[in-house]
């Protein structure tokens, strides 16, 4: 782990949702730490808590039915979970920004994109209408939108999905936030456009020094973008390591499954890769997680211990942890 103080630190985050079927613990003991200018990837299937982690950091979890039960979210040392709502409004969009999965619906259809970018700048930096619109044009140019001076007056419906996601990125970065949370930013886009958006994110990161939390279910995307990867399953972190380490040496059976699911376009795949596989079963309902490892029902290696007690993270390498009983060297402790 880097010696520098982390920019954003999440500790032992717990989030619960009250539902008709009982209380669902959607996040359980989530911890992460993000260094300035770095990229952290969060991977997992739908419903594993990736987006909920992001919303919790922004404190945008709908309350009720949601409730942030425990933990801390420290931005430069300040615990955001203890901050006032007024303080959070200052943080959102200025210190921590977010872009979402659906560029087609994430922009307000009745305002021009220029107005929507300028609004953030006016709100956080108190610029005049004119200056904030100039900033909007500047940001549109930065995200390579052609004819920015004209397009700034256009409305979301006049743009393609890829363009809209660029607008979202421009809007998120307009106030030079120190953290950008990108929640599945390319899932709704064409493959070619996906690559463009990733290139843009990298480029903007180099320019502005923003740290990125990239949320994705796509191991390939994470491999390309992230310095460090966190794998989540059923609201918990099951494995965490540097990107290269996790790709070359995945330890948790779930991570291995995820990596095996990525199709490869190679004429002669190495024999050890084998056929494209899938992880059997689905993510369990969060309302009836037993006391054991939540992955146990889908795991080939599950033992009685897995089914009765949840594993804590074990160190499995240099700065590499996996929450799996397979790596409990001290035996069942």
């Amino acid at each position, binding site marked *: 782990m880097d010696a520098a103080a982390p920019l954003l630190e999440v500790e032992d985050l717990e989030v619960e949702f009250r539902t008709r079927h009982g209380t669902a613990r959607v996040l359980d003991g989530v911890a992460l730490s993000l260094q300035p200018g770095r990229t952290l990837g969060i991977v997992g299937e739908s419903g594993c808590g990736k987006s909920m982690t992001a919303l919790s950091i922004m404190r*945008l979890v709908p309350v009720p039915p949601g409730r942030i039960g425990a933990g801390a979210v420290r931005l430069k040392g300040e615990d955001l979970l203890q901050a006032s709502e007024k303080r959070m*409004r200052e943080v959102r*969009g200025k210190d921590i920004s*977010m872009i*979402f999965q659906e560029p087609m619906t*994430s*922009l*307000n*259809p009745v305002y021009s994109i220029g107005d929507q970018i300028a609004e953030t700048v006016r709100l956080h930096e108190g610029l005049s209408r004119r200056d904030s619109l100039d900033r909007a044009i500047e940001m549109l140019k930065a995200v390579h939108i052609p004819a920015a001076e004209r397009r700034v007056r256009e*409305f979301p419906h006049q743009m393609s999905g890829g363009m809209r996601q660029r607008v979202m990125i421009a809007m998120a970065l307009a106030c030079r936030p120190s953290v950008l949370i990108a929640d599945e930013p390319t899932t709704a886009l064409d493959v070619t456009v996906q690559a463009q958006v990733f290139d843009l994110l990298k480029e903007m990161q180099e320019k502005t020094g923003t740290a990125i939390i990239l949320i994705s279910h796509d191991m390939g995307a994470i491999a390309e973008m992230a310095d460090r990867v966190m794998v989540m399953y059923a609201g918990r972190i099951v494995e965490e390591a540097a990107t290269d380490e996790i790709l070359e040496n995945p330890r948790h059976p779930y991570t291995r499954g995820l990596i095996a699911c990525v199709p490869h376009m190679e004429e002669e795949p190495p024999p050890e890769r084998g056929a494209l596989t899938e992880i059997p079963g689905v993510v369990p309902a969060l309302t009836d997680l037993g006391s054991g490892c939540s992955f146990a029902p889908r795991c080939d290696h599950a033992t009685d211990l897995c089914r009765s007690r949840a594993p804590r993270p074990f160190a499995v390498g240099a700065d590499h942890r996996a929450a799996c009983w397979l790596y409990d060297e001290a035996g069942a402790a």
Partner: protein
Amino acid sequence: MLLLAVVVFNFILLSLVPGDIADTLAGESGGASQEVMDDIRRTYGLDRPFHIQLATYVGKVVQGDLGTSYYFNLPVTELILGRIAPTLLLVVTALVLAILIGTLFGVIASRRPNGLFSHFVTVLALVGFAAPVFWTAFLLIVLFVAMLEIMPLSGLVDPTTPRGTLTWYLDVLHHLFLPVLSLSSIYLASYSRLARASMMDVLGSDYIRTARAKGLGETSVTYKHALRNAVIPVITIAGLQFSHIFSGAVVVETVFTWPGLGTLAFESILRGDTPTIMGILFFSAMIVIVVNLLTDLAYRLVDPRIRSARNA
């Protein structure tokens, strides 16, 4: 073209109604001989074949002549223009109030969908839908006129007040209160219900999450980002319901003897004053068309997607 169809349809419909002006005049003068009745019918051209009557009428309407009222013996156009102002005052005030207050109620209710106010809006909507206008009007009369004695019972203005003075205007407003309240109650109910549903829908959308993630406060999120999207269906319904509220006005005007088109229409029907009825129907049709046009313009103002669709 549409208006022409309206004119022809109205004419056919009214010619099916039994009784005519001769019957009315005979009734009012206490009986008349068949000869006199035939004479009256000849005067008004009612003895001619149906298709000739129709063609004559349509020909006149095309030239802007709505005919002459049998009863008042005045040009129908003049009669309508003299009565249009009170009706527009009543209808427009009621509609504007219903939209503004209804939308506001809906917005407040949508902020807390399970709160007390939200339930109040639901009940209000139910009562508003269920209660007929004339019933509401009578209840309001019982409360404000008979019990509290703070509102005038009927008419546009106290005839003793000098016309054109400030007191005169205030007196009109005083007289306007109950009719507007009765007429707007149903629409208030439906708009608040509609605005509530529309707002709740919009508040759950992705761009509202984006607005919150930008650091906007709830007030900006609600009134700037959500409301402008949520009023689009309200505008649609308001445009469609304008003709509705016009027919509601007939009832309300009659109850409060408000000297507008509604009262005129009601009385003309009783009198069998066919040209006046047809004139009013023609006029209402025109107003509905104009309002639809205004609705479209309002759309363009609110929703940029429509602006560019039309330009493209």
